[in-house]
């Protein structure tokens, strides 16, 4: 179950085919299909809903110009969802690149996570979040994740992308993505436990 609304795989391939035929004509259906999940994704990465729409809009501007530049065959072969998330991730990363890391980051300076040793079989934060029980606490924890781990966590647990899609979006090996998502999940869980959620 995803927390953001993204089109089904069939819709994705239909959109790619339509964009391959006519970028201008198919662009609005593409925007409608992905705008909510991209705004939500950016807002979750940034922790700043006010800026999320501006960045999401820039995502689609970049996407449009790229689609215009791509040959038809390349547009038809696009994995639109992960491709759009990749643009969103890049632009969001750029937006926060110069910002200092939060003082209360969940990660240690050496890159290890405080929660790395915490292993239990309690429901993960994603499941708790789905229940609506700890949503704000999860958001607070996600905001404390480092920019290195946050995208993988948000894409996997809040946006419900597959590891393959995340790997494609982040241009990282699947193994790296899995490790990042796992470490982030442990860090979030540790935060929730410390917060007695």
């Amino acid at each position, binding site marked *: 179950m995803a927390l953001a609304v993204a089109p089904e795989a069939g819709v994705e391939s239909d959109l790619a085919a339509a964009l391959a035929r006519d970028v201008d004509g198919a662009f609005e259906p593409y925007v*409608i299909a992905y705008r909510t999940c991209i705004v939500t994704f950016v807002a979750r990465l940034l922790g700043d809903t006010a800026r999320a729409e501006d960045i*999401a809009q820039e995502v689609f501007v970049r996407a449009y110009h790229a689609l215009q530049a791509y040959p038809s065959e390349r547009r038809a072969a696009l994995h639109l969802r992960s491709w759009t998330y990749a643009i969103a991730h890049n632009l969001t990363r750029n937006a926060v690149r110069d910002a200092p890391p939060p003082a209360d980051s969940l990660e240690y300076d050496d890159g290890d996570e405080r929660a790395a040793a915490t292993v239990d079989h309690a429901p993960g934060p994603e499941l708790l979040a789905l229940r609506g029980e700890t949503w704000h*606490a999860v958001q607070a924890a996600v905001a404390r994740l480092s920019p290195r781990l946050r995208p993988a966590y948000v894409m996997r647990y809040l946006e419900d992308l597959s590891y393959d899609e995340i790997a494609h979006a982040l241009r990282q090996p699947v193994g790296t993505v899995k490790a990042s998502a796992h470490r982030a999940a442990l860090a979030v869980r540790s935060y929730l436990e410390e917060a007695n959620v």
Partner: protein
Amino acid sequence: MFDAQPQQAPRPPGADFTTALFARIGLDRYTVGSCVLGAVYLGWSARGVSAVRLTAAHGAADEFADWYHERTGRRIVPAVELDTIARAAQAKLADSSAADVPVDLDLATPLERDVFARVREIRAGYARPCELIARELGAGCTPQSVADVLTNNAVPLLIPCHRVVREDRCCGGYVFGDDAQQQLLAAEGLDPSAVDRAIERGYRYIENDGWFCLPTCGSIAVHLDAPGYAGLRSLDEVRARGLRACGSCRPLAA
């Protein structure tokens, strides 16, 4: 610790997210609306409505898109969703008494903006001659230049150029044709044939209970075709009778 009403639902963007986005990439959109004359292509940008054209005149949508590109230099695509502007425009096309909608005058010349502003002041059920509009706009503006601007009006109905009439007859030179103008004026309560008959008799004004009006004044439309109304051929006749100018049709230039 737990929020009683956790906000975990996806956050849809604001209502005009797509409109602003399309403005940034330079794409306008269109839909099909309907008016008294039938189906129309309704094109718009983030600034306002940019085109109203009869579908019957353009045929296929591609032809309309080509016309639009040639005229504006911008591309236009069919809309999937209607935004605030498009919904308001559809309401206005269906009912001329609905609220005015923003019009995209980005490519308009200063003269066009001035003429359109005057035309938008003309209420439904009334019409004004080109000559009065030209006179109100001042030196350098002639009835012919007003007529030329209106012939080139890309957003008829929303800029109601059908309410601008000629000196010698009611309907003529309308962007959608004389029959369409006649139909629109009649739908708003005027009787173009009666106006034409008054003009043919040489009447420039009509007496109305101590006032004088244009033959195209909405307040005299009901009895213009009935026998016994008093026509006036000149301002001298008006003065001789001591009549005051109607505040609704403003038979004298402002």
